[in-house]
């Protein structure tokens, strides 16, 4: 199986099938990246589309200094941040997390809502680190580069986020155990 990095290098050489392959590999992840962070599904779709277009247009400038996954979600994060700024300037309702969970979710609606609300209660910086780690599965170093913070900061934020989330979830039925 061709690696992501090999595919983007092929795209850099002009291979459209390579782009199609990358799109198929990361379509759901990029969609999930925006969908978990946005209320508006249509807007999330637009931003996901914009992310892939940015990869397509910027393939000529790609340099294999980091993993493609970090490169892709770095672009996605940049686009999301720009959209948030734009939304803030237009004073539209821009909640960080969606108000309603997707109907097609395989998880029990109540449990999913509980987790989402717990994540929403986290500090903004800690939440972003946690989500990049848990959902985008980026390493500490990759998260640090995307957020422009030191690796140790990423680690400490992630730890605090997990501990806070543990405490929140402990208070709910079916709670986790605790080492105090």
């Amino acid at each position: 199986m061709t690696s992501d990095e090999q595919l983007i290098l092929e795209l850099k050489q002009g291979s459209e099938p390579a782009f199609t392959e990358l799109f198929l590999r990361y379509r759901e992840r990029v969609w999930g990246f925006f969908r978990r962070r946005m209320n508006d599904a249509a807007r999330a779709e637009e931003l996901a589309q914009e992310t892939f277009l940015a990869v397509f247009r910027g393939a000529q400038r790609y340099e294999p200094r980091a993993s493609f996954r970090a490169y892709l979600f770095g672009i996605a994060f940049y686009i999301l941040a720009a959209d948030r700024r734009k939304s803030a300037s237009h004073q539209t309702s821009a909640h960080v997390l969606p108000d309603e969970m997707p109907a097609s979710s395989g998880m029990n609606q109540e449990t999913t809502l509980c987790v989402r609300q717990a994540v929403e209660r986290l500090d903004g910086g800690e939440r972003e680190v946690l989500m990049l780690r848990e959902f985008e599965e980026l390493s500490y170093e990759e998260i640090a580069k995307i957020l422009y913070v030191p690796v140790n900061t990423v680690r400490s934020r992630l730890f605090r986020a997990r501990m806070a989330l543990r405490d929140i979830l402990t208070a709910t039925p079916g709670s986790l155990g605790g080492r105090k």
Partner: protein
Amino acid sequence: MNSSTHPYEQEVVMAYLDGELSADRASGVAAHLRECAECAELAEQMQGVSVHLANWSVEPAPASLASGLEAARKDRALPKVDRRKGIAGWLDGRFAPLRGRWIVGAVGAAAVAVMLLAVGVQNSRKESNATALSYRQAIESKQLLAPGAHAPAVAVTGRNYTQSTAPAPPPSDNASQMAAELYRERAQISENLENDLPASRGSLPTFQPAEPMIARTASVSVIVKDFGPVEAAVKAIALRHSGYIASLNTASPQDSARTLSATLQIPSAQLESAIAELKQLGRVDQETQSGEEVTKEFTDRAARLKNARATEQRLLDVLREHTGKVKDILDAEQEIARVRGEIEQMEADQRALQTRIDFATVQLSVQEEYKASLQGAPPSTATRLRNAAVVGYRSLIESVIGIGVFALQALPILLLWGIILFLPARWMWKRFRRTAAPQS
């Protein structure tokens, strides 16, 4: 977590679960987790959090995502491969973020163009002002003739007397007031020039004065038949041309011609006419004129002065806003004092240079035409005898005084040696007497 009981921090345990540790460290943490129930429980809780989060799924991506992307891609063809290489490619990559911001670039370029235009117009105005205020025009328009001006005081000492005045500003008479006014105008020109100069020496120099700045000097040597009225004539010439006498020295040796040497400071614009009048004092023996262009020096000094002032202002700003250690404040104050000293030194140099430009220096040398006189009759015998008696008397007095001086100088040391040598000499004398007595 207590580090005495748990060798690894909780964050390290978390990093182990995330696969962020090196192999050695990961094996250490894994071994600890097998032994430490507390840490194992923490790890389990963290994994539980991850499991909970993993259950947060979203609906599948809509099909319109792929179709919309395909449509958007068709709007733009795939970029050419290796479209730009080398430096162009590097620049393309470097400035890629600005590519979509052409409006910002266009606005910035327009703003720069407007600024350059404004600066250019301002410079041309200042240059024309400097030209209008040029020293020559000021001299001509003000007609610096000062017939009623009085001469500065002269101190007479014996046969030679000297007169000295401060080089700048001139004495407080009508001519000096005009000269001072001109001096201020020149200072204004200098200030305009400084304002035109950028603060950074790196971008120097874009300003060029309207006319070259020349420090003129001249030397005139004249031989006159009638030496008497020369001094008064020289003073009158200096005053007529709004100048002043910086120094004047006359000498009247017994068996040679009398001489007058003077240094005159004459406004540069009137140098020619002043020299013409000086040459009319007598026969011109020698005349030289020279001019040193100091435009570059003047411009350079003005720029350095402005830079130093800017540095001083920055230091003052730093000092005003600084709230650090006392030592830093003292260092800043010391630096300000140093820069202030440099500024004052440069200002003094600049004023001296302006004086050299405004006032030409004329070295005047006047010599009387020497007429040898016959020696008179030899003195009489009585006079010679009297002179001899006087000389003899002086020699006698000198000898007595010399002996007295020698005695006073040598007596203490002679007494000392006498005391030291008295007892040994006495002992030797007695011994000599004893040895001589039996023989006798």
